């Protein structure tokens, strides 16, 4: 007996490379059939619930591998329930949260506690990175082994680069031993100290202190030497520059276990957006040059950049209502992740399959979690969306409590209709 039958859908399965009309049957939260064409009459009849998708895209739920949770520590900005519900509304069925909470997630008991709380919330699944260093201080290695045992999917140091090469080497050795990826925010902090935006003619004209683009690739290049020494899995997070893409491309050609992600601002916008000093455009890493933006798109298209993540963070309005320099970097992302990524499809820079691969299969495989595959036996984490449905980004309408976006007023295409986690509906647009 099938619990749920979704048919007449445009089935998009990056795992099998399928983009065709098809159907999916779900029983006990698990995909029991996923094929092209229409199901036979008997199966239709046997289904407790049958949904005609009307040709909308049915794909694996999104796996957002870079989200900053404000819970614990700043629940007034966005608590875990709001975050996981909002993610579901954005078609995201798994969120991977960074350790930058208060207190920092650098202890196995924090992983346990947050994971347990997430199971009580009917929204996206929650996965966690453990902090690579105690208190994200970049000095002492946190208890990675115990956090891994508690379920940490990888280790990250938030938006603070591990600057000490010896600490980084040992972290890579240790992560390699645990077979977990180390996720690095790539920024030479010494070189970017005090910076307010990307270093360029624009920063000079605006009188803002610039962060050179090279500060990103310099860390990646150093880290690649350490990866060669340790053989560990290394993930460069939210890369934003051409030099970084080039470095990652060379590392992949060399056969190193290196992966990378980027976020929509880095393929949608460039540094010129900063010209009005609008702090919604203050991000970390900063918006880069047009050439960098083009390189990011090329990187996504040719597979150098594996994944696209939202880089979602709930920023306090007061922290943004500041002059550009002191304003806090970061913006909301989970409401817009799918539509902004689909803009690359509409502009014919990447295929629909590649887009969904970047949003589900790639992050899932980097982190060894389920997702990204519409195959029998997989958990029924699904998203149904109209790829062409148009809407205008209005932060006031966001499901998320985080209402600061650099895309305010932008017309986009692609809207989530429903999402399911483990076969249970977690979002349906009314």
């Amino acid at each position: 007996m099938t619990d749920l039958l979704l048919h007449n859908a445009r089935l998009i399965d990056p795992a099998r490379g399928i983009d065709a009309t098809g159907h999916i049957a779900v029983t006990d939260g698990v995909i029991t059939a996923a094929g092209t064409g229409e199901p036979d009459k008997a199966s239709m009849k046997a289904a407790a619930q049958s949904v005609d998708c009307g040709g909308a895209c049915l794909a694996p739920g999104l796996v957002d591998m870079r989200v900053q949770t404000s819970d614990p520590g700043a629940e007034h900005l966005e608590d875990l329930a709001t975050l996981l519900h909002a993610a579901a509304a954005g078609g995201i069925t798994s969120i991977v949260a960074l350790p930058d909470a208060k207190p920092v997630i650098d202890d196995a008991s924090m992983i346990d506690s947050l994971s347990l709380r997430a199971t009580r919330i009917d929204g996206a699944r929650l996965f966690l990175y453990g902090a690579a260093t105690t208190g994200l201080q970049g000095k002492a290695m946190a208890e990675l082994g115990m956090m891994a045992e508690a379920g940490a999917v990888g280790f990250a140091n938030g938006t603070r680069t591990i600057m000490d090469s010896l600490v980084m080497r040992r972290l890579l050795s240790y992560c390699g031993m645990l077979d977990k990826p180390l996720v690095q925010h790539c920024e030479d902090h010494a070189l970017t100290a005090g910076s307010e935006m990307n270093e360029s003619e624009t920063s000079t004209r605006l009188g803002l202190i610039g962060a050179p683009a090279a500060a990103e690739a310099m860390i990646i290049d150093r880290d690649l030497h350490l990866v060669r020494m340790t053989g560990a899995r290394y993930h460069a997070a939210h890369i934003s520059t051409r030099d970084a893409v080039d470095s990652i491309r060379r590392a992949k050609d060399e056969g190193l276990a290196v992966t990378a992600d980027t976020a929509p601002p880095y393929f949608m916008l460039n540094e010129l957006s900063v010209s009005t000093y609008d702090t919604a455009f203050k991000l970390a890493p900063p918006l880069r040059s047009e050439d960098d933006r083009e390189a990011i798109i090329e990187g996504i298209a040719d597979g150098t950049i594996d994944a696209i993540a939202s880089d979602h963070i709930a920023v306090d309005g007061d922290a943004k209502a500041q002059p550009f320099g002191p304003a806090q970097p970061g913006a909301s992302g989970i409401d817009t992740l799918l539509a902004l990524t689909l803009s690359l499809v509409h502009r014919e820079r990447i295929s629909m399959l590649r887009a969904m691969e970047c949003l589900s299969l790639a992050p899932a495989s980097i982190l060894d979690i389920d997702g990204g595959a519409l195959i029998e036996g997989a958990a029924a984490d699904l998203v149904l969306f109209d790829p062409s449905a148009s809407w205008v980004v209005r932060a006031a309408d966001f499901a998320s409590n985080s209402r600061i976006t650099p895309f305010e007023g932008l017309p986009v295409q692609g809207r989530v209709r429903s999402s399911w986690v483990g076969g249970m509906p977690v979002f349906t647009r009314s």
Partner: protein
Amino acid sequence: MPPAYKLNSMTKQSDSGSRNTATLATTPAPPARLASKHLLGIEGLNPLEINALIDRGDMFADLIQEEQPITPPLSEVLKGRTVLNLFFENSTRTRVSFELAAKNLSGSVLNINVAGSSVKKGETLLDTATTLNAMHPHILVVRHNCSGAAQLLSQHVDAAVINAGDGRHEHPTQALLDALTIKRRVGRIEGLKIAICGDIANSRVARSNIHLLSTLGAEIRLVCPATLLPDAVDAMGVEIHTNLEQGIEGVDIVMMLRLQTERMEGTETPSQREYFNMFGLDRRKLMRAAPNALIMHPGPMNRGVEIDSATADDVEKSLIRTQVEIGVAARMACLEALATKEGAA
């Protein structure tokens, strides 16, 4: 790496734990003879020399364990000779063990308390060596926190030098006493599966034991966190594991090492709690070793860090106290070998 040559004919074969008088009644092992004037490390000793030291130590151990008096001529090997214990690092068991060994052989022993000596006043190692040399000691037992310090001293003194531990390099008498302890309990070294577990990077005991045990034909596995694994250590002919339970699967001997926090800079392992959780030996993890597996530790132990008390104090399985006892015998063999070498006797 296989041993350079086989030694079956040289080693006493005994598979039962209860040997003792029977073997003693046969020909007692002669004093060991070494090619070198000094004992600076296991690396460089050939299997004949190693076995000679072990066999001679075995004879001394019989005497000590049976509480027999050590009589002439054995008791006079070091008569009229000065053994200088020069310890630049704190030590209780090794220093006392050498002192006892020397006294059993009638040597006069001088302990230099380096902490309160001219070294504190800024004297260099070589100046100290020159000064001590002028006092004409016969044997210098040296421990120093720098690798290579014993060798440096040996080049500047007339005495025979025994390395009692130099930095992360070697601790030859510890390896000899470990081998002797194993041999007395199991009857052989060859073919045994031995896991050396813990802080390999900072351990001179590990290096000496790797050289010695693999030379005698044991199969060595190293078990440690990836961060405590020295570069290219597999070139020493060992199998490497980063998981304790997998690493000790089916082994005959589990040799634990002390987490040498004094030699660490603080980021090799996250915490003692995590270290114990992943690399500490307890009864549950020990189940993976061979049923009659034995536990060793060069001491001093960090209980609850690399080993839990129940395991360390298990009289059936733990050889830790025996190691200390055997240490004196092994060092008597070493002192005797160097005294004989010196030729003044």
